[in-house]
């Protein structure tokens, strides 16, 4: 396997792709949004429970490639305990990582999410990694409408 491919499909990503965490519905979740990438048919529904401004629980269901599944899985882990503003700042930092842009000044540390750095070498896969995050943003804002990667979300 080549270097770039190994960078893309790191063990942690393959693991979360095969055995995603928080793969479940949250019944009666008040914050929920559907994400869809019509180019590859990937779907992700994000469920959130908020207490005040803090994410208490996060989960997802959906069908997608290993990158989008791992991204959703690791995202739900990363945002628990974060405030809305912190979660959104994390998304901005994550987005800069997968598109290969420099992080904004004062951006939060990504921690485990750094494993997605290899995505920046694969422009067609950026949408796979970012779909769950775009959907999260909609769920945080309580938007009922579905998010599509092809309607300016990217």
């Amino acid at each position, binding site marked *: 396997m080549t270097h770039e*491919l190994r960078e893309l499909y790191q063990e942690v990503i*393959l693991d979360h792709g095969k055995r995603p965490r928080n793969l479940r519905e949250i019944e009666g979740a008040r914050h929920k949004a559907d994400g869809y990438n019509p180019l*590859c*048919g990937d779907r992700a529904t994000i469920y959130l429970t908020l207490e005040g401004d803090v994410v208490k629980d996060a989960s997802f269901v959906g069908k997608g490639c290993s990158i989008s599944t791992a991204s959703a899985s690791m995202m739900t882990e990363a945002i628990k305990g974060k405030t809305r503003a912190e979660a959104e700042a994390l998304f901005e930092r994550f987005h800069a990582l997968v598109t290969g842009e420099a992080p904004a000044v004062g951006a939060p540390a990504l921690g485990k999410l750094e494993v997605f750095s290899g995505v920046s070498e694969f422009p067609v*896969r950026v949408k796979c990694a970012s779909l769950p995050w775009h959907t999260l943003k909609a769920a945080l804002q309580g938007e009922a409408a579905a998010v599509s990667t092809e309607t300016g979300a990217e």
Partner: protein
Amino acid sequence: MSQTESARATSSSFDVAAVRRDFPILKTTVHDKPLVYLDSAASAQKPQVVIDAERRVYEESYANVHRGVHQLSMRATDLYEGARVKVQKLLKAASHKEIVFTRGTTEAVNLVASSYGRRHVGAGDEVLITGLEHHSNIVPWQMLCEEKGARLRVAPLNDAGEVVFEELERLITPRTRIVSVAHVSNALGTVLPIARIVAAAHAQGVPVFVDGAQSVPRLPVDVRALGCDFYAFSGHKAYGPSGTGVLYGRADLLSSMPPYQGGGDMILSVTFEKTIYNDIPYKFEAGTPNIAGAIALGTAVDYMTALGLEAIHSYEDELLAYGTERLATVPGLTLIGTAAEKTGVLSFVLDGVHPHDIGTVLDYEGIAIRTGHHCAQPVMDRFGIPATARASLAFYNTREEIDALVLGLHKVREMFA
């Protein structure tokens, strides 16, 4: 096995090694691996003669067509009209006037939906398509139906990916104004029984449009034997330039249809009071066309004709049979689309691996396949899957390339499954 031996083993009459030398891009490498191009159903590669033909137009014979009295314009016009005759002969149409140059199949569908459709489809009428159509043979009709208050009806597929003929026949009603079907499915490779569909539609006085984007590059097509009223294909899938295409229409139908776009070349005379439209096919070719592209498409037609569509078809069918057999050896692989009459396409899913991941890993093996819904989302929905991986074949592909695909799929499985 060397490439030459492989060719002999595959077909005694088809020299694939020689054919491959005609396609310069097949010598390139991808990620340091020899290119294995299995995406010809999306767009086919071009032989050197086609590349040369387009370049030579600009070097030696370029001017606008149908306009000048000067030498170059006449030369360009002769070449452009010569290409039209080549296409006429390829499709076995009765007259070159029945051949309209378009940007591709998509524009041809839009032309007929807009011109014929707007005139003949009204409120409460029906347009009949099938469940395996490409988006380009769905959306233009949907737009027409929405505008007119008409209804789009869809003939269903069985589990093999074949159109259920009896259902299709039942859906041809007194309200049906046109039937529009693919000759070969781009997503599944299913070959539709066009002559039978035409007979059923004509029995009710309904005309038939055939999307030939996948069939013209791989099957002998005879529009008069099929009996269809319209037939369209894209140049870029038939080894010609992108941005070229053809609409065949029966002369009496084309003559009775209003123009599609207005502009130069589609008129005989223009005053501010009244415009008299040109004769067919020019009535449907407003503006300066893709002159060099159409001429090079004529060269692509010459190239396919010299190889022989029968020979191309039988070679590709042997490859398809070989590919079907080899893919069956990959654990967890399911073919989507197992029609008895099938050509050119191996669409599949792999247990536990998303098609997108298959495509990325294969790319690093130099293997180009298509992953996704193939512009046929309703087909994916029919089979309850979001996407497939699709290897599509052309006459320049070899058994060795199928073997490379199978080897690549084993690597994919090692990684993900």
